[in-house]
């Protein structure tokens, strides 16, 4: 088997499957069921072969490059499948596999309502776009596939086009993603100007020719461009509205993997192609990481729309990844490669972890939404009795994302902590304080994330139902359960065997040219991870085993001690009144105290309206209305001024374009004269 199918072959087979899947879905679009099976079925096959290719590259060192020369100048279809690319292909294929399994059952409620053929088409194109983005090795080629990915995801966002809100959301996404692309193009053109090539490999060899100023410019452009895709604050505004709008399995892919392509390119450029030489690059990324993680989780807490909550929490996790990446860049600039390895592995590990548990949570939320027909958590409650398996898996996801041991989220946050701790010790005074702040941000983020997911799980699944819809709901069908269940198992396995995973990631990092000479400062066992300085050691399998053993012992002891005691079932203490669903705490109420504490940042507003039965007397209110809102700070202070500026400039420009043909001819004439003059001089 090993030699029969090469990584290269199976990667292209995967792309082929996606192409067939896309085309077939269009052919079968008249038949909902067939289109569904074809679209998702081929996506499953494609993901499997993608997984196979990535595994071979990662474990058997079967990296490859492959080029198809096109006739156009500067454009050539170069694929580079090194271990970094293979790692991202692995993440994409893994999540795509389970999302497609989930999708098989999930899209059934679109039957007769929406066109499943187009869904299958764009879904497969979207997957292919992501796979190509992480393997493209030529800037032109990259931009084409980047655009394919962005456009396909745009069409998926507006797929449920009967809801007007989605169209608006889609437009915002469309604009933001193209503003980002503009900056990316600028970055690549700057690289081309100095190195004379669009090929990533050649750019990397000639990176010495790039002047410092240009490098700084490229850094800023690439950071804005790819950062906008990754959802860093303040370029995140599209993310919390676009991700929830898409069908759930697509949301899972967008939040779990698509935003990671931005992270991938940041790594590819700043670590591989143009290794960080300037200290402030890493520092800036650390600061962005802090802002994104803290603000992301705070905004997540304010949400009562479950999908929006999850989308904001993606921003938080991107922030955590950036903390790892930023520390790696700082270490790289300070020429401490061994420590940079640690930071980079932390970032990669969190990328993998976030992909698993965010996909899990999105798909869990999707199952709930498809039964209750609302995204508003205030109308859930008590779902654990109606959907026990979904609830159990959602709980595991919540624990993993809150970084609770023994799940995987804990390990990557632990590693990020260690990278930052080393930064405090190794970096100089000023940068050291940035690292201290970063540790603080990460610590508070962890705590707030736990609060956020106690809210998300507790308010949705526990206590009593708050609406009739909940009482009608029942457990989702098998394919949905499988999709979620496998991901839940993965969060546990990735946690318990985190040592082995870290070892694989070490292979990924040392495969990069800049890290080949890096000495190792940590050792990994099957289940434990140890810094060689003796600073820290952790073993999640030990924690897991200890929890299991102690839990078992306590359960047994208590059972023996109290086996003669009865357990009665009674009502919750109701203070003598009837317990209505409105007496439980709501999602808004749960996070209200945190919002009040952080009112300086979140700027909550409260608007009360009372309508009286008799407007003159004002004694008997007819109805009360309270509207709680969080101010859109970015819109008010950043995007609206920017928009006004654009409009203003446009009005100036309009003065030139007066529609008079003679004037235009005059412009051409004057331009010609000026150009000729320049030529003469």
């Amino acid at each position, binding site marked *: 088997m090993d030699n029969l199918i090469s990584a290269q072959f199976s990667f292209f087979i995967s792309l082929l499957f996606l192409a067939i899947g896309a085309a077939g879905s269009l052919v079968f679009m008249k038949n909902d069921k067939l289109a569904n099976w074809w679209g998702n079925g081929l996506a499953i096959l494609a993901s499997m072969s993608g997984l196979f290719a990535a595994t071979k590259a990662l474990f058997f060192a079967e990296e490859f490059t492959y080029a198809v020369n096109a006739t156009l100048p500067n454009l050539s279809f170069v694929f580079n499948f090194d271990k970094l690319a293979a790692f991202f292909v692995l993440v994409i294929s893994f999540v795509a596999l389970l999302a497609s399994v989930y999708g098989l059952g999930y899209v059934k409620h679109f039957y007769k309502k929406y066109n499943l053929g187009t869904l299958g088409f764009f879904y497969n194109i979207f997957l292919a776009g992501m796979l190509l983005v992480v393997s493209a090795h030529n800037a032109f080629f990259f931009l084409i596939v980047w655009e394919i990915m962005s456009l396909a995801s745009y069409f998926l966002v507006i797929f449920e086009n009967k809801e007007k809100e989605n169209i608006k959301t889609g437009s915002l996404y469309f604009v933001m993603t193209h503003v980002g692309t503009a900056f990316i193009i600028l970055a690549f053109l700057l690289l081309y100007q100095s190195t004379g090539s669009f090929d990533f490999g050649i750019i990397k060899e000639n990176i010495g020719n790039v002047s410092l100023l240009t490098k700084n410019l490229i850094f800023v452009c690439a950071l804005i461009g790819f950062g906008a895709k990754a959802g860093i604050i303040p370029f995140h505004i599209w993310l919390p509205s676009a991700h929830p709008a898409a069908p759930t399995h697509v949301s899972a892919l967008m939040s779990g993997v698509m935003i990671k392509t931005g992270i991938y390119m940041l790594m590819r450029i700043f670590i591989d192609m143009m290794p960080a030489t300037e200290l402030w690059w890493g520092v800036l990324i650390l600061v962005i990481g802090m802002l994104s993680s803290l603000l992301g989780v705070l905004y997540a807490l304010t949400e009562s729309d479950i999908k929006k909550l999850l989308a904001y929490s993606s921003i938080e996790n991107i922030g955590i990844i950036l903390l790892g990446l930023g520390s790696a860049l700082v270490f790289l600039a300070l020429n401490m490669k061994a420590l940079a390895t640690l930071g980079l592995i932390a970032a990669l590990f969190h990328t993998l972890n976030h992909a698993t548990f965010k996909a899990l949570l999105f798909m869990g939320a999707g199952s709930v939404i498809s039964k209750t027909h609302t995204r508003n958590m205030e109308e859930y409650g008590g779902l654990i009795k109606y959907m026990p398996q979904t609830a159990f898996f959602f709980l595991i996801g919540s624990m993993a994302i809150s970084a609770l041991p023994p799940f995987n989220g804990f390990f990557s946050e632990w590693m990020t902590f260690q990278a930052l701790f080393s930064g405090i010790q190794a970096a100089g005074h000023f940068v050291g*304080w940035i690292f*201290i702040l970063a540790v603080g941000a990460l610590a508070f983020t962890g705590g707030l994330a*736990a609060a956020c997911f106690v*809210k998300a799980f507790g308010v949705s699944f526990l206590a009593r139902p708050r609406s009739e819809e909940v009482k009608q709901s029942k457990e989702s069908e098998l394919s949905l359960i499988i999709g979620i269940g496998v991901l839940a198992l993965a969060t546990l396995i990735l946690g318990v065997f985190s040592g082995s995973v870290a070892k694989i990631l070490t292979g990924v990092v040392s495969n990069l040219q800049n890290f080949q000479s890096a000495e190792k400062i940590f050792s990994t066992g099957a289940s434990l991870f140890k810094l060689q300085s003796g*600073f820290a*050691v952790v073993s999640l399998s030990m924690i897991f085993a*200890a929890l299991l053993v102690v*839990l078992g012992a306590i359960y047994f002891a208590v059972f023996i001690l109290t086996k003669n005691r009865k*357990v009665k*079932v009674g009502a919750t203490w109701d203070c003598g009144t009837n317990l209505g669903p409105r007496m439980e705490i709501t999602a808004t109420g749960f996070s209200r105290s945190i919002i009040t504490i952080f009112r300086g940042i979140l700027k909550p507003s409260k608007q009360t309206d009372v309508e009286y039965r008799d407007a003159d007397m004002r004694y008997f209110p007819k109805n009360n209305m309270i509207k709680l809102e969080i101010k859109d700070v970015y819109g008010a202070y950043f995007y609206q001024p920017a928009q006004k500026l654009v409009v203003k400039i446009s009005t100036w420009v309009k003065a030139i374009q007066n529609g008079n043909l003679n004037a235009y001819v005059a412009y051409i004439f004057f331009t010609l004269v000026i150009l000729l003059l320049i030529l003469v001089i």
Partner: protein
Amino acid sequence: MILVPVLAPLFLGIVRKIKAHFQKRKGASIFRPYRDLWKLFHKDEVISEYASWIFHFAPYLIFAVTVIVGASIPLFSTYFANNLLSDFLVIVYLIALSTFFLALSGLDVGSAFGGFGSSREMTLAALTEGGFIFSLLALSFLAHSTNLFSISASVASLSLLDFTPVILAFVAFVIVMLSETAHFPFDNPATHLELTMVHEAMILEYSGKRLALIEWAAASKFLIFLSLGANLFFPWGLTMRLGLGTIVLALGIFLLKVLVLTIFVAVLESSIAKFRFFRLPDLLFIAFILSAMAIGLIL
């Protein structure tokens, strides 16, 4: 290994006794909490009809976590240096695990009290975590290790002149301890008055053996924090060797140190009032900043 759960109710009893003394009461015996636990284990249980398996399972997990944490921190000897679980981040996040389930079980029965208790608890826990990690981080920079036993050992070998950052971190740690163990000025462990309670509100629906487990876990958590405070910041008297004489001596010193801290908490609790809820974050941020200063001094 099970020293913490065994001794924990005793220190709860001592705190109560001292508080009673301040209130001009005679107070129950210091062994009363043991009898309470025994009594609760022998009572029938009433469980809400709305409760799910989370409510049933949480007490076991919460208690298991305190047992594990209690076994992984330095108590009177550095001999049992358990390398794999004694990382301070592991301890912090294991405690977060128990808080997570406690808050869920508060929400689970769907009473108004439980929900608000959980909301307040998670608010406090989220804000406490920064100070908690930072106060221990300051020490781990002194020790060049995040292992609690190594921290203990290297703080012990510190000269008195270098003790300023340790004191700063200790003040921060005390604030964190009061918040995490539901003591004044954060929470009133003796009340069931709805406006003030946090911890008690969450466990209102528990009875019988599960209440016993939760109460026992809370007492153990208190002792865990006391011993962390005593052994990380004032780590003298920990024995390295195994021998009957040294163990008895070390155990004696340990109990003495913890007793001093217990008296301090009891006196504090009798002499100040509970803070308004929205003033508590200020206190927690002070803890955070004090430890950040400590780290600044060390580097």
